[in-house]
């Protein structure tokens, strides 16, 4: 079993994945490259700059600063930094532009909010773009399927807590493969559902609203986006089995059909919230949803997908920036405190 695990790990390592034994090849390569070229720290994350984007100064000049609040879609550690959409936006921007990529794999909206709250005074972004949906649906399914309270009681009352070992073993390559090839295929044979209970709509709405409010309270212009997936109802039957089995690793309650239906439903909710709250909206769904050739799996973009999304975001955000010049004026007042904080830091 160990031999099998070692072989799989080595293969995964070569493909650029994070492995428990060999680590991440991509990061090692980047480190050595930056040392060779003498271009140290062009991109984060680093100890002082926690974002996977081009390192910028804390002092804000005339450039428009865009905060990307997302998850693995925007972090995408297996791609070079310059190929992911947050870091390409400024390539298509007319004028000065800076991006803070506040996205991490597994980061949900509360995580996005915490990060924004932590750094907003230091970096003073103009826009906070929220691109989140699949994780919310994943967590909602998790809450439906697991009695979290019961599990917590069990863990609290056990003298043998092995949750760390369990978490470690779940990162092994053998586990990932078994989960995909056996667990995934078996899950697909079950009665997966075609919708989440309606009560979860309000949970989704609350999360979006809290992001809007946090952004506004911090003087940042929130931008909501709809979500794009590799497949929609029209081409779902074309979804390859490997993507389906990967899909059920993260979605144990919804069927692929149920999932794309929920994406559509929540996208409609996002549009409704944006219109009701007067928030900026970028309709990524209408541009990219169902275009499977732009994705590596069911939610993550390939380099071409990243490029097209960056162009789309740059165009829309530029329009918003020209529409909301007042935003910067408002910020000049509200950032007096943060400027002091910054100088204090220095």
């Amino acid at each position, binding site marked *: 079993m160990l031999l099998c695990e070692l072989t799989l790990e080595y293969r995964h390592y070569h493909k650029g994945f994070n492995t428990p034994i060999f680590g991440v090849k991509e990061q090692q390569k980047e480190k050595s490259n930056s040392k060779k070229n003498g271009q140290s720290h062009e991109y984060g994350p680093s100890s002082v700059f926690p974002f996977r984007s081009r390192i910028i100064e804390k002092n804000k000049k005339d450039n428009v600063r865009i905060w990307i609040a997302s998850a693995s879609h925007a972090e995408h550690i297996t791609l070079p930094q310059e190929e992911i959409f947050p870091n390409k936006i400024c390539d298509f921007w007319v004028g000065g532009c800076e991006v803070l990529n506040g996205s991490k794999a597994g980061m949900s909206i509360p995580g996005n909010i915490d990060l924004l709250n932590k750094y907003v005074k230091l970096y003073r972004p103009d826009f906070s773009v929220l691109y989140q949906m699949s994780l919310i649906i994943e967590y909602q399914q998790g809450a439906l399927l697991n009695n979290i309270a019961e599990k917590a009681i069990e863990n609290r009352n056990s003298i043998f807590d092995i949750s760390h070992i369990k978490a470690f073993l779940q990162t092994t390559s053998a586990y990932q493969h078994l989960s995909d090839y056996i*667990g995934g295929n*078996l899950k697909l044979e079950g*009665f997966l559902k075609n919708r989440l209970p309606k009560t979860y709509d309000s949970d989704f709405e609350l999360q979006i609203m809290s992001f809007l409010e946090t952004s506004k309270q911090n003087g940042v212009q929130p931008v909501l986006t709809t979500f794009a997936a590799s497949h929609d109802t029209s081409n779902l039957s074309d979804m390859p089995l490997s993507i389906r089995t990967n899909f059920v690793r993260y979605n144990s309650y919804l069927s692929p059909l149920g999932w794309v239906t929920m994406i559509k439903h929540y996208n409609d909710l996002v549009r409704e919230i944006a219109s009701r709250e007067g928030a900026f909206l970028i309709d990524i769904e209408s541009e990219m949803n169902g275009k499977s050739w732009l994705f590596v799996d069911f939610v993550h973009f390939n380099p071409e997908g990243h490029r097209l999304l960056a162009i789309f975001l740059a165009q829309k955000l530029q329009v918003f920036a020209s529409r909301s010049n007042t935003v910067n004026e408002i910020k000049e007042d509200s950032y007096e405190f943060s400027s002091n904080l910054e100088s204090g830091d220095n």
Partner: protein
Amino acid sequence: MTFNSLSFALFLPVFLLLYYAVCSRQRLRDVLLLVGSYFFYMSWYWQYAGLIIISTVIDYFVGRRMHRATSKKERKFLLLVSLCVNLGILAVFKYYNFFIESSHTAFAALGFDIPIGYHQLLLPVGISFYTFQTLSYTIDIYRKQLEPEESLIKFAVFVSFFPQLVAGPIVRAKDFLPQLSRPTFLSSENFNAGLKLVFIGLFKKIIIADLLAYLIVDEVFKDPSAFSSWDLLIGLYAYTFQIYCDFSGYSDIAIGVALMMGFKLAINFNRPYISQNPSDFWRRWHISLSTWLRDYLYIALGGNRGSQWYVARNLVLTMLLGGLWHGAAWNFVIWGAFHGLILVLTRNIVVEERFGVKMALKIFINFHLVVFGWLLFRVSDVNNFTAYITGLFEFSGGSAVSSLVYMLLLASAFMHFVPKIWHENLIGRVIDHQGLWVRSTIYSLMLFVFIGASIGAPSFIYFQF
């Protein structure tokens, strides 16, 4: 810590290594068995280890005192103490809420609104099993069929022996304590047989029981109205084999682990679905419980002595209490009553010795009686039962069931309905006759399959009892 959990996979090898290191020294072995068993139990909910300690200490001293007592009155009093303590704990932790709720409903029907106060205590895992085990010890001493155990440690090991602590088989003191008194006998044959049983048990649990639950059973019972009559029928058959594989799988693992340590536990299942009448079924299903009920309840009530009505009363009462033992809910009581009733009605049906049409017909009819019983056992309430029965007899067409369900049902049927020698030969050819390396590879591959197939690792059904 369930047998199909990672915790147990880590615990067992470490424990076995320690056990093999000390097993030649009996006292040390007993201490290790005790510590290991309490660790196993406390890994679930450490506070409830206190309940086993109370049962153990009370029954240990009651047993010794009872043995020394000369007057029948004192013996009776001591037996009463043991019964009150053990059944009292069971009543509080397992049945209190059920009785309170049932009384409230009954009084409400009469127009009285009595205040209701539930407790929020969790049901201690395996409480019904170890309670019956310790009760059998004191009753046997009371009946002068058993000498009390001198060593508190050995007695504590008997009560808490981890392989069968939480879901049986219910071991009798006269079978187990003598094994503790002898030096440990270890052999590679026992180890191999035990390991094979562990893997067979895991296969039954993870591959058949859990998958049937996930692929069909849980869904059809959650909302029967959403399924066709055919799917409901298949769902019912699936539950019939799920509960068998779940529980007999656990027993196999328990017996296998004990065997790897040199202890022999009696079999708990003997292909129950090939039984020809309900009485035959209870000789093959959960044998340790049915013999317990027979020896300590049915016989105590009068057994077969007396008129037909008297015997019928004894049978129904025994099965009613047997049903209640399974859980604090009315469907278990009704399930018990149903089995009591069919036991009474089929008393004159003889078991055929030779295979033929008569035997096949008897197996078929009895199997379906048992299947109906499982419907009563599994439903959540009256509405659920009505919806299931209505859907079943609507004779609506169509099926949404995966072909994998049929494959699993076929595998289960193979385990049951073909001669035992066939699958013994099959397992023998695949595992027993192979060299160490091939066997290790087969077991490793099986472990990979088990890990892959474990979807959320549900608990063993019988843990709740």
